[in-house]
């Protein structure tokens, strides 16, 4: 790759006036320590083969790091990449893919997230496919990427701000009227291992830890401002295809459900399913009618908002009189955060759940990971395994004030918070083996809210790729009762005509379903569109993606080739994990779910069995392997050899 000039403080590259095939054809490599800015051309053949977004990030991290490298090492890159569809008329083409080595994982492996808002298009219209950030600044800094220029701005004035205030300050100081801002909060500044990056004031990246990576580099914010222009290679074709996909969206029950309630739409089923496991998976209430979707919408509004070019509007702003009277109005609440805080901590009222989620997001840390930590501490405290000298306070289930105080201490690393900020697994490792065993996690990635003994697909999802098993995957894979109505295509894939609660607890078809969902999501993230419509509602197919890619880039893509490329990228991620020592013996659901059956309720007796799990995992690996083999050597963007 050709290297451009490097310079101090500010550098620009001569922009071609128009991006005509979806790719800007260049990445910028920024060193925060030396203040060097390198512009690198990305060869067209490389882009043609790996498309963009997630694939570019995975390849870059693989190339620039060695096994065992600490997540906070300044040689470890923080990568941001957009796909060729970003910034075009393609529906949901807002996605920016973020990746780095994970500070939350143990040992550190890859962490990745999709950023909502308009960050992907802004990066592309600024003239870049990818940003690679290295080094550590000696003072708080903001990176401004705008129309072929990259510059460093002092961020000292808003160091210590919450993510939303920091984003506003960074945007104001950059002088960019139209921009997307990624920022971190206090938790990120203090290198809390589950700190998040927040986009455009409200939208947290679902992977915990990326905020800590930014904080460790004293990078408070990244301002992306692009004005383009960009032209699709086959404009009329893209116009037609985009219209077709939007039409499919308008008819999809799954998309309608997402539009109505955001990712919180399955809460009603879960609250009434009898498959709830509360208080660190120790209590099993019959139902939780007060925590349903309708309750949320009627009392707390759940006002919809959309990302760039997205007709789904699944983003949610939470308000309502009860909260706004307390000065709380916030965006970015998602299914996984709400479920984890409600169930893991045993909170029975929406208002308490929302207060905890809001506090965590204001501090810039992942509510789900924090809930996992707090639930584990409370569990151990109640069992007498640890005492108040270790927790800093008396711990009790449902004590919201205590949880809020603990969140603040954790983000600021004050008192006992200096340990809590290390994340649940590192904290658990300071305890006895029996206490550590109570923590549900896979290689340091905190287990989500749903019980893997009931939701078998979820257990497979987390065990096979914990870095990629965020809230979106968990929507499709638990096979919630009634979900088939929202995603009719899944019936075909899973070979079932109806989906009932019993299906959720079975292994039937889960491996194929998960492989299909995950490959599709990966292909979407490579192309530069949001994974949600593809993965949770199955409203975008690989063929749709291939056709839109052809319309934008002018290059021939086919569905099989695209899926094969996605499979190769997933294999590269797997390979990185194996090289860190995360083999099949480590990547598995927590041991307690194999040993302790669900004691009561409609799913009493359900437990993970070694043989069933190993069989499903084998099926999943085979399914991904078969997909990889279908692409051929040159067709459709795929490559069997990475």
């Amino acid at each position: 790759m050709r290297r451009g000039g490097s310079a101090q403080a500010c550098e620009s590259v001569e922009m071609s006036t128009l991006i005509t095939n979806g790719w800007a054809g260049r990445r910028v490599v920024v060193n925060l320590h030396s203040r060097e800015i390198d512009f690198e051309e990305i060869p067209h053949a490389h882009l043609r083969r790996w498309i963009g977004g997630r694939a570019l990030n995975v390849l870059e991290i693989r190339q620039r790091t060695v096994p065992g490298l600490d997540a906070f090492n300044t040689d470890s890159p923080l990568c941001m990449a957009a796909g060729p569809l970003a910034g075009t008329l393609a529906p949901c083409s807002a996605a920016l893919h973020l990746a780095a080595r994970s500070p939350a994982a143990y040992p550190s492996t890859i962490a990745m997230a999709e950023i909502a808002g308009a960050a992907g298009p802004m990066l592309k219209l600024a003239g870049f496919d990818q940003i690679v950030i290295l080094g550590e600044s000696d003072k708080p800094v903001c990176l401004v990427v705008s129309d072929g220029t990259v510059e460093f701005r002092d961020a000292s004035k808003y160091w210590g701000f919450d993510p939303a205030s920091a984003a506003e300050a960074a945007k104001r100081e950059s002088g960019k009227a139209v921009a997307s801002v990624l920022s971190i909060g206090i938790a990120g500044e203090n290198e809390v291992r589950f700190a998040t990056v927040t986009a455009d004031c409200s939208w947290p990246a679902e992977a915990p830890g990326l905020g800590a990576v930014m904080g460790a580099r004293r990078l408070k914010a990244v301002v992306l401002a692009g004005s383009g222009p960009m032209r699709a290679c086959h404009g009329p074709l893209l116009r037609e295809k985009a219209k077709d996909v939007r039409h499919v969206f308008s008819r999809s029950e799954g998309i309608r459900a997402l539009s109505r309630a955001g990712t919180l739409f399955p809460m009603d089923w879960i609250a009434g399913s009898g498959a709830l496991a509360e208080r660190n998976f120790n209590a099993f209430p019959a139902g939780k009618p007060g925590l349903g979707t309708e309750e949320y919408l009627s009392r707390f509004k759940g006002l919809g908002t959309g990302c760039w070019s997205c007709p789904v509007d699944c983003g949610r702003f939470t308000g309502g009189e009860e909260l706004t009277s307390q000065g709380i109005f916030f965006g970015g609440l998602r299914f996984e955060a709400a479920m984890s805080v409600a169930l893991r901590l045993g909170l029975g009222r929406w208002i308490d759940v929302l207060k905890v989620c809001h506090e965590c997001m204001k501090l810039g840390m992942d509510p789900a990971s924090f809930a996992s930590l707090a639930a584990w501490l409370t569990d151990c405290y109640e069992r007498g395994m640890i005492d108040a000298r270790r927790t800093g306070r008396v711990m009790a289930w449902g004590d919201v004030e205590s949880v809020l105080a603990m969140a603040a201490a954790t983000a600021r690393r004050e008192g006992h918070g200096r340990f809590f900020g290390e994340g649940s697994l590192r904290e658990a490792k300071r305890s006895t083996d029996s206490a550590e065993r109570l923590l549900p996690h896979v290689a340091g990635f905190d287990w989500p809210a749903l019980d893997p003994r009931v939701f078998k697909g979820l257990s497979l999802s987390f065990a096979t790729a914990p870095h990629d098993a965020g809230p979106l995957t968990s929507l499709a894979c638990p096979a919630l009762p009634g979900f088939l109505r929202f995603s009719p295509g899944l019936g075909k894939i899973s070979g079932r005509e109806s989906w009932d609660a019993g299906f959720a607890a079975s292994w039937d078809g889960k491996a194929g379903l998960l492989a299909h969902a995950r490959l599709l999501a990966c292909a979407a993230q490579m192309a530069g569109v949001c994974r949600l419509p593809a993965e949770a509602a199955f409203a975008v197919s690989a063929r749709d993606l291939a056709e839109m890619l052809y319309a934008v880039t002018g290059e021939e893509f086919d569905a099989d080739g695209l899926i094969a490329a996605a499979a190769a990228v997933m294999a590269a991620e797997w390979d990185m994990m194996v090289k860190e020592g995360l083999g099949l013996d480590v990547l598995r659901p927590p041991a307690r779910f194999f040993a302790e059956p669900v004691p009561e309720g409609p799913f009493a007796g359900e437990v993970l069995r070694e043989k069933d799990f190993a069989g499903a995992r084998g099926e999943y690996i085979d399914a991904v392997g078969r997909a990889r083999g279908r692409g051929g050597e040159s067709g459709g963007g795929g490559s069997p050899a990475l």
Partner: protein
Amino acid sequence: MRSTVFVNADLCTGCKLCELVCADAHEGLTGPAFSRIRVESFPRVNAWFPVVCAHCAKPPCVAACPSRARSKDHGGLVAIDAESCIGCGQCVLACPLGAASMHPDDGFAIGCDLCSGSPACVEACASKALRFVPGVLGARGRRRNWALKNLARR
């Protein structure tokens, strides 16, 4: 009877699809600066406000234009004669809505032309924040909304 694109900002979700399709329809490309409709964003408070030419009955941009490139046609549309435009930007300064803008490449005035009666932005708006209605009907709709709001208070 004058037609305009009516904006109900309460329904806008900030997806900016209107900007995308507008730039595509007029220029065959994407890029917010090329759009005739612009969405002002206040993301922290979930507020979005599409701004588009209102085709005013007494348009200040027409009065301000020194080269008479902007004019009010018989159908009520504020039209721009690209040949006559000198790119002085007086229309941008005069428009109280901020709906007038200049082409980022050539520097001449651009503005909403209602896509010859079928605005692409309205067609693409999934949340129905944008509506294309004749002026009289628009006023009637607003009257009715106003009446319903007041009736609801009883």
